[in-house]
């Protein structure tokens, strides 16, 4: 089971969360809320939740610290396999090229590219599936439901 594996680098993850939540709390503190003595202010809930979340991160970090130290490279190895890195890069590139190439072409390239990189066999079958998926989505969304595609 995944839960039984050693979760390498959780402390770094919690560190990143702490930085993110501190930034959120700083932003919340600028609003009128509990900190300013206005319990019904726009920032009240954000301030309460921000403090609560930071305390939880600190508590979890202490708990994790007892589980032993882990290296940064260990964390990278634990989180990212070759396939995951490839898919993440493909998704980011897909999101970026969509604005220039349009939905249909960028989706076809993304589908065919990722399907082939994940399993390098039967390119023709993958091309047909990719094309079929794009055509189905375009027909379903654009013509049937009149939904604008990216």
């Amino acid at each position, binding site marked *: 089971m995944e839960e039984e594996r050693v979760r390498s680098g959780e402390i770094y993850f919690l560190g990143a969360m702490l930085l993110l939540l501190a930034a959120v709390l700083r932003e919340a503190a600028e609003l009128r809320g509990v900190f300013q003595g206005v319990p019904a202010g726009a920032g009240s809930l954000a301030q309460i939740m921000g403090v609560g*979340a930071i305390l939880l991160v600190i508590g979890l970090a202490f708990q994790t610290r007892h589980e032993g130290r882990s290296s940064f490279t260990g964390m990278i190895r634990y989180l990212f396999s070759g*396939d995951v890195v490839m898919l993440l890069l493909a998704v980011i590139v897909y*999101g970026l090229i969509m604005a220039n190439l349009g939905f249909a072409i960028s989706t076809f390239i993304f589908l065919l590219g990722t399907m082939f990189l994940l399993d390098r066999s039967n390119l023709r079958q993958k091309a047909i599936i990719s094309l079929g998926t794009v055509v189905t989505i375009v027909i379903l969304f654009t013509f049937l439901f*009149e939904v604008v595609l990216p």
Partner: protein
Amino acid sequence: MLGLEGFLVPFMSIELIFFVALGVFVGIYIGAIPGLSVTMAVSLLLSFTFTWDVFPALALMVGIYVGGVYGGSRSAILLNMPGSPSAVATGLDGYPLARLGEAGKAMGLATTMSAIGTFFGIVILALASPLVADLAIRFAPRDYLLLALMGMLLVGSLSRGSLAKALLVAAIGILVGLVGMDPFTAEPRLTFGVPRLLGGISFVVAMIGLFGLSEGLYQLHYKIAPVKQKIDRIVPDMKLVLKNLPLALRCSAIGTLIGALPGTGGDIAALMAYDHAKRTVKNPSRPFGEGAWEGVVAPEAANNAAIGGAFIPMMTLGIPGDSVTAVLIGALMIHGLRPGPMMMKEQPEFFWMMVGALVLANIFLYIFGMTGIRMFSRIVEIPKAVIIPIVIVLSTVGSYTINNNVADIYWMIAFGVLGYFLKMYGYPLAPMVLGVILSPLIDANYRRAMALEHGDIGAFLSSFVTNPLTAVLLLFTLFMLLSQVDWKTKIGALRQRFSK
């Protein structure tokens, strides 16, 4: 009963039967596709049905509503990607069932329980509308706050392992839900000076990223193989249905009541019902979260029962119970009808026509719900190299269609990556969705309740015990809180300590 003959109207017209059936069929598939919401479908229908007669237009919309709420369960069970927010809870046990090769049976059970839930909601709508509407209208902001806090107590139910991790994720969810323009003062909140964030972050986008993309990354990382499905039986075993019938009825009651409260809907109803099942079912078929049938029964009965509930304030008071009934009120007004107490008095046959259309839709829900399951089940058997890219494309389209905004695609990717990290470190994802969903309800009602007491914290706290309805809700909330503690173990440990 006055106007009861209106009940038979949908059953006597071939045209209305056709439109209800068409609506249910289309609704199931719209509900199953993430990003295509029932509200959006009903809103789109408004544009080309406003020239129609009122009955066919409403028959089609009611059909889509009933089918759409159920349809979300299909993608939740098969891909762990809920087609609609009301199916989030279904995926918690539905997806593990698909991983065990029981997707077909899970979808069959979900269909049956959805039909039971819808029927229960309709019965309450028909028999107890004025009573439930009267109760719902008495809810003050502090009561809604308690209801939202009750919802937050579900965090314990939605997680396995560390409660602190679940609470952290829920708190982050609440903070995400607060991003955007403050609805009371219109000032930017947690936007970091970025104008694009003024519109807030859609919880549907967060949900699609957290459950869709992160699942794809997780499955690739662990190279989870496709599972061969056992689809010899789709109609669930009568024994299984009868065993779970009391739970389905209890959850339907929860769903109807939650649905009747304005501003809450099938999503909260399903989560509350799941929590109820987890607390009350002593010997589930499997542990919750690992493919318990009860984990599919409870949310599916509740989210469909919420439909009948949502119609109660709409028909009796003219107040929408959820976003779909808000659009339906608009549709009625386009046709010159104004739902509310006067309509109930002057045109009761119209109320009964709606009840009849709902009953008809429920019949078609069961018929169409049982079709296509074998074909759908095969989705789980598709190789990961093919299905994961397709799921990502659907997630992308689904995120974009919410606001026609490319920035939502980037948010979906960000939530997907965050969800993947959270999963890898054993943080549950469902509490984050719960936080995002409940955040506006908690914020608005906390501030309204506080403002009603002029910011006086003492008066705010005492208002919880001086109002009978609030006091009952408070007791109920405390009961829910205390029931999360394992008293048996605690008392046993204390006894041991004292005996030493």
